């Protein structure tokens, strides 16, 4: 096997990132049903587990997963999503890549953990809500007084953010199993995994 990232690998990264993103986006559309919105941090990494596991069968060297996360975050920022996604997305992709490399992109336990870490890039979407919360409450405190601001703070707790992270973990874990099962059932038989 050739060392380093070849041009063919770069094409594969682009191809699988496109599939990953479309699947992710299509699942995210369910967020228009209000109840489903809360389930998105679980559902998106769950369904996207299929393309990601297929992508991993093409990965043989460090950097490919990092690049995938980078262009994913780049695309999100270019389409007007919070810029914090870029540093967080790259960080999570590199960390996930490191975990995956520890298992040489083949060991199931490091694949499982690596996909969970990678999927946390989605949490970058929530970070500005945190900053926003502070600035927003500072503004309310100045405008309408402490009592009002405290009442409002108590009903919008920060645990939503932590819940998102936990939901992503479970979604990615289930997605990894889903992807593995799909590979075994369909893609190996068709000869493309």
């Amino acid at each position, binding site marked *: 096997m050739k060392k380093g990232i070849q041009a063919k690998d770069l094409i594969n990264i682009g191809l699988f990132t496109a599939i990953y993103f479309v*699947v992710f986006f299509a699942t995210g559309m369910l967020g228009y049903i209000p109840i489903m919105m809360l389930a998105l941090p679980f559902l998106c990494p769950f369904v996207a587990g299929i393309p990601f596991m297929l992508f991993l069968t093409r990965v043989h060297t460090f950097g490919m997963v990092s690049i995938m996360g980078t262009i994913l975050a780049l695309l999100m920022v270019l389409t007007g999503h919070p810029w914090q996604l870029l540093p967080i997305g790259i960080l999570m992709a590199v960390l996930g890549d490191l975990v995956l490399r520890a298992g040489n992109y083949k060991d199931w336990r490091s694949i499982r953990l690596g996909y969970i870490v990678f999927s946390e890039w989605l949490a970058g979407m929530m970070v500005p809500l945190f900053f926003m919360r502070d600035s927003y409450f500072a503004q309310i405190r100045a405008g309408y007084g402490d009592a009002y601001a405290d009442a409002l703070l108590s009903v919008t707790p920060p645990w939503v953010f932590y819940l998102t992270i936990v939901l992503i973990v479970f979604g990615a874990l289930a997605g990894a199993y889903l992807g593995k099962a799909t590979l075994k059932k369909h893609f190996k038989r068709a000869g*493309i995994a």
Partner: protein
Amino acid sequence: MGFAAFSSNHQSLYRLDPRTKILLTVLVGIVMMGGSIHGPSAIPRALLALAPFGLLLAERKYRQGLLYLFVLLLSVGVESYLVTRTQGALNLILVIVSSLFTRFVPGLMMGYYLVSTTRISELIAALEKMHMPRQIVIPFAVMMRFFPTVIEENNAVREAMRMRGLHLSGGNVSAYLEYMLIPMMMCTVKIGEELSAAALTRGLGRPGARTSLCDIKLRGLDALLITISLLAFALWIVL
């Protein structure tokens, strides 16, 4: 709206450098996310919030521009007047919805403007001019190339199913995954392998700088917009 809208044949009335659009998108996103709708920092925020409106109008996207202005004014109005005059659950909903809208919608609208008025080849040329490494630019270009293919294959699978009298009603998620997603992925991967071979024979793997036919230059209008938005950004930081 969204990634599929990356235009391939859009003719702008005036040509903005994609780098200008990227800068504006990022600045609008940063500025709208923080700060207040009261006090002095509201002035640069209002200026930048109106940027997508002006740009969309200039592209003759009147419907989108006016809709954006309506949503923006409505949510700012709700945030500044109704929030203090309501109580209980209604107040909570108004606070969350209006504050989310005033902060996220301008950035997303800029993103929509960027995506719908920039050709992919222009964006790639701009990314190369920004000295992005080719390990980023090539996969990014391939990804852009593949969005239409993925959607096309998805439609093809749906057509094939309909032809055989198969219908997937909503709710059956596992059947959807198995019958739609997997054939779509198989087709796309096969196409990708062919594309990969074709691109390699055309010298994609070759080292060295690539040239582009796109004429990407910072012009007078770019300079003007960059100056105004950077000034507004600086003002926002200082205030």
